[in-house]
């Protein structure tokens, strides 16, 4: 039982799960679930009560039962009491103060990660302002490697997302060429296929692999299909760099995606066995996003941000190469407008980083959300200042297959320019070598197609097709 007296009213919260939900900054998904605070005053009362909760309490009271949820078991069983010891005496409020202090430097935060649970970091994020979320995250780098090194200080990487409504290889190639010329693609060249057949996915993987070899560009490929499809592709010799999977923060939500921890382990092991990385062997590409557990009716009455943080515990168990919160994709019934999307993106990023997860963000919105490109500009710049590992690069920010808006190749260039950020070092060296970027980090404005790219275009006989 938790209580706060505020403005002459006593607010009572029966358990930790309820307290966390009531303390969450306003968002439509929690209102849809019927667990949000009923008033602004109740929300602040919950935050005041939450600030007084000892962090140890989160080790004693699970928000989703241990007995029936393998994600809870993963969180509890993998908790490292030694790593937790430096903050074991703190409350949630004291933890916020410590995170903002100079004592919480990069080294201290890295050492702390195995001692943190998703519920602890979700709790502290709920009593942080957006500025706090940016400042704390900026102190914590999570660096991963495959053929490029992603997440280093002073770097901002981009997933090149060349989707096409019919998976037309020439149409996808066109977007890949455009993106590489504009300096995107150092995190991954990742296609959401329109069709899900294994044969289609194999063709797309082979196409990216051919482009990568022809241009000698240091990057990795991913076709974002179900992990069981990817495992099958690996078994039949397809050139799989990064297996993809959407993950969530409860066992039931993961089952609705057709996965469990065992399947993720199988995919991770299979891809690592191929040893296709050159500078590192992290392989998994996970996507997450607030609201997915509620959408699957598998949230156990836990608020959507806390459930989302639990998905990062799933992610970190597999030392992934990339994790991406697709923050505004789910729609206004979970994140209503630009303000809610902004807040959620910053929360997701800092919670993941504190847990040791290499977080990137699809800074995005759908056309039925109260949001526009101006909102995305603010989130993108805030995340870049917070040290986000990667963002999306799309032609003109417009995904013509999935029907939503993200960030453009130009947005990535502009953000790198504003904050003095560079691409991943291996990719930067390539851009310099092929003359697409100058020493100052500017991408050449020329529209001429370099010879190596020109040779990728369809042969004259195919041009009529």
């Amino acid at each position, binding site marked *: 039982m938790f209580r706060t007296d505020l403005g002459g009213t006593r607010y009572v919260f029966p358990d930790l799960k309820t307290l966390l939900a009531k303390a969450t900054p306003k968002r*439509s998904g929690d*209102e*849809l679930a019927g667990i949000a605070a009923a008033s602004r005053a109740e929300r602040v009362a919950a935050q005041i009560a939450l600030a007084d909760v000892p962090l140890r309490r989160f080790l004693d009271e699970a928000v989703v039962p241990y007995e029936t949820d393998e994600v809870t078991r993963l969180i509890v069983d993998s908790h490292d009491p030694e790593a937790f010891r430096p903050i074991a005496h703190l409350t949630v409020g004291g933890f916020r103060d410590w995170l903002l202090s100079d004592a919480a430097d990069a080294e201290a935060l890295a050492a702390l990660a195995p001692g943190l649970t998703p519920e602890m970091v979700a709790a502290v994020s709920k009593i942080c302002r957006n500025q706090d979320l940016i400042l704390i995250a900026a102190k914590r780098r999570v660096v991963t490697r495959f053929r490029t090194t992603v997440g280093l200080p002073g770097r901002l990487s981009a997933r090149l997302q*060349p*989707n*096409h*409504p*019919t998976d*037309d290889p*020439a*149409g*996808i*190639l*066109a*977007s890949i*060429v*455009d993106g590489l010329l504009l300096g995107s693609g150092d995190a991954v060249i990742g296609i959401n296929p*329109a*069709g899900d057949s294994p044969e289609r996915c194999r063709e797309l993987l082979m196409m990216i692999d051919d482009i990568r070899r022809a241009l000698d560009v240091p990057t990795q490929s991913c076709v974002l299909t179900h992990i069981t499809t990817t495992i099958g592709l690996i078994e039949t010799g397809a050139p799989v760099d990064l297996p993809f999977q959407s993950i969530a923060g409860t066992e039931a939500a993961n089952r609705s995606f057709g996965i469990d921890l065992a399947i993720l382990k199988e995919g991770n092991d299979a891809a690592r066995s191929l040893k296709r990385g050159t500078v590192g062997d992290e392989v998994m590409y996970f996507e997450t996003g607030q609201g997915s557990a509620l959408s699957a009716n598998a949230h156990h009455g836990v608020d959507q941000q806390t459930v989302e943080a639990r998905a990062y515990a799933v992610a970190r168990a597999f030392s992934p190469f990339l994790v991406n919160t697709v923050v505004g994709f789910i*729609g*206004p*019934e979970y994140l*209503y407008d630009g303000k809610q999307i902004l807040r959620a993106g910053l929360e997701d990023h800092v919670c993941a980083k504190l847990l040791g997860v290499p977080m990137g963000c699809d800074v995005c919105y*759908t*056309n*039925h959300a109260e949001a*526009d*490109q101006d909102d995305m500009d603010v989130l993108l710049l805030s995340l870049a200042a917070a040290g986000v590992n990667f963002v999306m690069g*799309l*032609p*003109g*920010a*417009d*995904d*013509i297959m*999935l*029907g*939503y*808006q993200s960030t*453009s190749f*130009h947005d990535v*260039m*502009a953000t*790198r*320019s504003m904050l003095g950020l560079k691409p991943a070092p291996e990719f930067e060296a390539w851009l310099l070598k092929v003359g697409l970027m100058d020493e100052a980090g*500017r*991408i050449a*404005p020329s*529209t001429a*197609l370099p010879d190596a*790219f*020109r040779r990728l*275009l*369809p042969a004259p006989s195919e*041009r009529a097709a």
Partner: protein
Amino acid sequence: MPSAACCRRPRSARHERRPLDPWALLKARTVARIGLGRAGASIATADHLAFQAAHAAARDAVLSRLDVEALTGALEAAGVATTVLASGATDRTTYLARPDLGRSLDPAAAAALAGAAGERPDVAVAVFGGLSAAGIGLHAAELVAGLITDFRAAGLKTASVPVVEFGRVALGDAIGERLGARLVVVIVGERPGLTSADAIGAYVTFRPRVGLTDADRNCVSNIRPAGMPLDEARRRIGWLAREALRLELTGTGLKDRSDEALLAAGAPPTAIA
């Protein structure tokens, strides 16, 4: 060295005679916004404003109100009876934030349908504004009138067409169940993309009843002149409806093979959920 230059020369020489813009080649294969004009690192003014215009069109489509009278008038003129009903969502904001209300019937609508419970049609076609009332306003009357004509010609019993402004797909389950329909076909405005503000979708569900999920339906999406043309959609929906009634199922167990002949001829596949 000279020999290497010789090897490359004929190619560029040919380009000089017949200029071939590689960007034109690339742009011909995708509607993605590639090859945009640049202003420094940013997108140049014309392309920036073109994006803004597309987003404005999509937003206007989402926020547009369904002209219920025009739609029912067009359907009645085509010999299709209609019944205007309400869902639990009474305005756009509620509709967007509360999917549960958009899936439930307003009590008055439920009472109205109770009177029609004895109809037991083979096929009930319902029209919802969904996320693009603009798309429904443009295309639904023609598509629905065509479908009703085809169903009648096939000897199937149809019902008065329910029209609901703020309905979600699963509302068709509640309506179909109350009508005692063997099959419900929901025509609904799709979430607009920047290149598809007027797209509508069709969801076919056998033995509709409250509690079904999308795994129990078949879908024909991106119905619009520049996507899947209306006559093509009419053919596919008709195929799905006939197969659903024959096999007595829809959803993951019913694979859309209506396009096998087309696929063999090289036509692109269509998203079927």
